[in-house]
């Protein structure tokens, strides 16, 4: 297997061919905030939090969706990157209706956590207050679009791991939203196996179990990676 040698904030690392810049950053012991990325799912580079700078290139690259290459010099923590990351998180909060106080995921929310990571003490952008839908037609689960950040983890886990492809993305810009089936009520989509994987991986309180109330959601964001390892490498959790 060929190996690429590169530096992350000056630290030299070697990663196997096919590794992402995010893998290289982690191998170097550095940390990058992520929201759409989830180990075990195909990267999409949707949230833009893991943007890094490549020395000698003016372009920013999403670390999760960029292949590590020989001789790259990756910068993860320039003052400008830190400022842009904080702005990106503020925009997430301003774009939807993220009210931590009574959210089902309060205390177990990656958006809430990443706000702390980037040092967000308030949003400098005016809140948009979009009047979105809540779909509680499924007997066990519900989706509250007010809390959705369009990371598409639900779309990917349902397609790639469960193989049901219940979820998809419709429309563009401010109208963009996650849809079930052919934009049907979730409970009417026959393809849904009620496996709950979308609940497990949702970074916020957008998809949740109906019997969970404020701050009661327990996410299991490690499960796609466990299932992936079981299928591809026959490594089982109980072995």
């Amino acid at each position, binding site marked *: 297997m060929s190996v690429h040698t590169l530096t992350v904030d000056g630290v030299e690392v070697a990663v196997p061919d096919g590794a992402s810049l995010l893998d290289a950053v982690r191998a170097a012991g550095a940390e990058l905030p992520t929201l759409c990325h989830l180990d075990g799912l195909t990267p999409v580079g949707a949230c833009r939090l893991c943007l890094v700078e490549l020395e000698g290139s003016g372009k920013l690259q999403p670390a999760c969706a960029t292949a590590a290459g020989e001789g790259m010099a990756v910068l993860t923590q320039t003052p400008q990157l830190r400022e842009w990351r904080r702005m990106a998180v503020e925009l997430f*909060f301003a774009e939807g*209706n993220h*009210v*931590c*106080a*009574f*959210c089902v995921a*309060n*205390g177990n929310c990656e958006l*809430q*956590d990443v*706000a*702390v990571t980037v*040092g*967000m*003490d*308030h*949003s400098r952008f*005016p*809140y948009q*207050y*979009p*009047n979105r839908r809540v779909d509680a037609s499924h007997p066990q689960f519900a989706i509250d679009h007010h809390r959705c950040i369009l990371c598409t983890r639900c779309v990917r886990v349902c397609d790639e791991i469960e193989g049901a492809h219940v979820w998809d993305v419709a429309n563009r810009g401010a109208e963009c939203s996650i849809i079930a089936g052919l934009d049907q009520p979730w409970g009417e989509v026959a393809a849904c196996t009620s496996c709950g994987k979308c609940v497990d991986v949702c970074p916020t309180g957008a998809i949740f179990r109906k019997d969970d109330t404020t*701050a009661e959601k327990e996410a299991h964001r490690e499960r796609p990676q466990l299932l992936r390892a079981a299928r591809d490498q026959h490594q089982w959790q109980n072995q």
Partner: protein
Amino acid sequence: MTNPSDKLRFATVWLAGCSGCHMSFLDLDEWLFELAEHVDVVFSPVASDIKDFPENVDVCLVEGAVANADNLELALQLRQRTRLVVSFGDCAVTGNVPALRNLWSEVDGGSRQSVLDRGYLELADTGAQHPHAPGIVPELLERVRPLHEVIPVDLYLPGCPPSAERIRAAIEPLLSGETPAMEGTAMLKFG
């Protein structure tokens, strides 16, 4: 500024919030005695009975969003009369629950009419009617805003409510003229 006792002139203000932040402030318990050694409480819904916001205030904690005409008037007034304004709790910092009615800003009548209809007509068991007392009941603003959209804010203290420990960690440095380090989960987590 004349300050004979050489103590900081300290105020707390309650705008559109549930008073939970003030309850959390009272959770400081015995540290309140220590605080009283360093400050004169010159205006506060929980610690004084003064109705007009005084001049020459050093530090003011402001709980709540700006939701009605009285909130707006007091916010503008306290900014003019205060050296260091602290946005105190999630309602002041983000708008939080009081600002949820902004979701109905696009419907007929806007957010103001929607929330009044819901509260006083649709949910009324008996005697459904809108409150009407001009000059006594303050008019709602059409858009509920976080404090920093109305006046410049010097320090943000998030939380719903911020815990007593977080409040203390934020205001203790202010007593000696220092700025608190607002970072990490203990100081910044919303909700």
